[in-house]
């Protein structure tokens, strides 16, 4: 026997608690249980259905609104506002972001303007926009566009600043001029940041469209929720909330797909 003795210590894996354990069934089961409890609480009149309608009742209400097409009218109104404002903001945001990111004079002019206007909650600008553009669609689209524009322009600006200068040098040494560098190096280089900006932006657009429709509209999901609340139609209100949840999930999925499609070199 060695003079060190016979004691043996087994080395333990100290990182065991960091390992990610997956509980695929738990997620589903807990979701179902919560729905069941909710159903039970509502049916048992522990909370009056007027305040908390049962999931089944909401589902039925939603089905009815689908059949009459009432829900489509509101969803389409909201979606068209989102889409219009979102697309405008993306185009302008990317253009302005590149401009202030790549050229020093626009940067000097634009940066303080953005820093000063960015902190204003966009919904606070809606009354001013209504004054300027009227109570109709343009003011609502404009407030969404404003809300999406800022995260977009800031993301694009950061993206331009973070394009590896060595890639610009490589392009220059391969014969690109300034404009071709913007098209062939900056644009693809900022694509991941553009998509990240879009993801941020669509969340903000969803928020703003509901807020704007609650202020001044006669269609849209926001309008539907507000009028349902006024008439104590809690089921209808809940259908509105669930629709918003679905929209959010859908946009998330959509942008994930777009990312895979437009940024194949990252996957």
């Amino acid at each position, binding site marked *: 026997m060695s003079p060190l003795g016979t004691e043996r210590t087994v080395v333990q894996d100290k990182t065991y608690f960091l390992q990610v354990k997956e509980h695929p069934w738990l997620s589903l089961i807990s979701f179902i249980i919560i729905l069941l409890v909710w159903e039970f609480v509502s049916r048992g009149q522990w909370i009056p259905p007027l305040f908390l309608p049962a999931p089944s009742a909401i589902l039925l209400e939603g089905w009815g609104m689908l059949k009459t097409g009432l829900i489509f009218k509101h969803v389409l109104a909201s979606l068209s506002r989102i889409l219009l404002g979102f697309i405008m903001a993306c185009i302008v945001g990317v253009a302005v972001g590149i401009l202030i990111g790549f050229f020093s004079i626009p940067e000097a002019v634009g940066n303080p303007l953005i820093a000063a206007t960015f902190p204003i909650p966009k919904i606070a600008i809606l009354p001013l926009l209504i004054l300027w553009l009227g109570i109709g669609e343009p003011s609502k689209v404009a407030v969404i566009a404003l809300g999406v524009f800022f995260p977009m322009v800031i993301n694009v600006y950061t993206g331009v600043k973070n394009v590896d200068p*060595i890639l610009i*040098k490589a392009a220059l*040494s*391969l014969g690109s001029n300034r404009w071709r560098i913007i098209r062939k190096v900056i644009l693809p280089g900022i694509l991941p940041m553009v998509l990240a900006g879009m993801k941020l932006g669509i969340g903000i657009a969803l928020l703003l469209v509901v807020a704007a429709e609650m202020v001044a509209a006669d269609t849209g999901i926001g309008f539907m929720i507000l009028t349902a609340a006024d008439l104590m139609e809690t089921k209808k209100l809940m259908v509105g909330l669930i629709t918003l949840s679905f929209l959010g999930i859908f946009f998330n999925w959509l942008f994930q797909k777009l990312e895979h499609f437009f*940024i194949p*070199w990252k996957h």
Partner: protein
Amino acid sequence: MRVLIDHISKTYTDRKGGRTETLQDVNFAIEENEFVVVVGPSGCGKTTLLNIIAGLLGPSSGQVIIEGRRLNSKPHTAVVFQDYALFPWRTVLQNIVYGLEEQRLIKSQQLDIAQKYIAMVGLQGFENKYPHQLSGGMKQRVAIARALATDPWLLMMDEPFSALDAQTRILMQYEISRIWEETHKSFLYITHHIQEAVFLGDRVVVMSRRPGKILEIIPIGLPRPRRENLVNDKPYLEYVDLIWNHVKDQAKEALEEKA
């Protein structure tokens, strides 16, 4: 064709007005078909010099002049950067044709030229991979093919193999030697690796520490083609020793300064 590096100096001025002299009166020429290696300790301004020759940085004084004329092309140089500088959103093939797109060649010509250099650097079968799917050695092959494809008057390489492991590095040295023999262009190669300099160069420009100036220009009279057995030859080892003696004191000073 001849590239004249005519009394180049470079001084950086920082925001506080502090001045750093990086290059001091660097003066030499790269002849047609010549393989020139610049060797020197880290921080001697080698990369600054390369950037100035490539037109990616302005000198404080002096100028770089390309002498001569060719019928079919404007004088242009190409650079292989230390960290590859591949466009991550472009596949191997798309990276290699980048310079050809900028020369406004038609698609079929671009592909013909790209195929030639893909074969030369041994990238067949990798055409549609993205850079992040390649090893360091493979990435540097892409960068070399991309630079060569533009048919430059002078190909410059800035420590191209310093990020590679030792074995890959040696293999790539053989490759570069072979590629130079095949293309017969002027090469300017920057390294801090003395053996590499002797193995590759027709002439070795030995530079001092900051401010970088030329200590010595040593013609390497070793026969070509140079292959791996060269590294055991006595003349090769003598050249290595000669250059080491030039830079030894410089390297020691640099080490002490950091300590």
